[in-house]
């Protein structure tokens, strides 16, 4: 599992079975210092996250298990909206202004 920031939305009319009605968001993966960590990608939202939100995600097979029905072709799912990240390096308030 990993942290990320929602940086956009993806709209797709023609979708595989099981993906109907699912919200697709563009996510930038972050490390615990909230620095970009890896390539931006698309994830399915399960927690009503919105643009700019700091979130955490689950990847791989387990991403599909976050959805109902769970037998769907996804490899990243947003499973939480982060309020706070408490780490030795810094205490970071989610929602605080950052790039």
């Amino acid at each position: 599992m990993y942290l990320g920031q929602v940086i956009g939305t993806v709209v797709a009319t023609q979708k595989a079975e099981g993906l109907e009605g699912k919200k697709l968001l563009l996510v930038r993966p972050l490390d615990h210092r909230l620095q970009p960590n890896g390539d931006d990608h698309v994830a399915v939202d399960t927690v009503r996250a919105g643009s700019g939100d700091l979130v955490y995600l689950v990847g791989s097979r387990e991403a599909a298990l976050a959805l109902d029905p769970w037998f769907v072709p996804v490899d990243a799912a947003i499973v939480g909206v982060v309020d706070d990240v408490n780490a030795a390096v810094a205490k970071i308030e989610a929602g605080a202004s950052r790039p």
Partner: protein
Amino acid sequence: MMLGRVEGNVVATAHHPAFDGRKLLIVQPLDETRRPVGTSILAVDMVQAGVGDVVLVNREGNGNRQLLKMGPIVPIRSLIVAIVDRVDVDGGGASA
């Protein structure tokens, strides 16, 4: 499984129901000599680990589902399953 050190925690009020009551920790992966390798990940805790602990993280969902006993549909990929007391490396590179 992966060795790592707990660096902190993440608080998230809005979350998937599978994470209800679960502690979510930031884990920095370590090599066998406890040097950081790669970037941090998030893992659910099931052994009461705390900041600074060296832990063992299972990064595979099926084993986690068996351990958590929450049924077959649990979207938890990384689970802290042990707090490491020591790592002995053959050839003298031991770390306590």
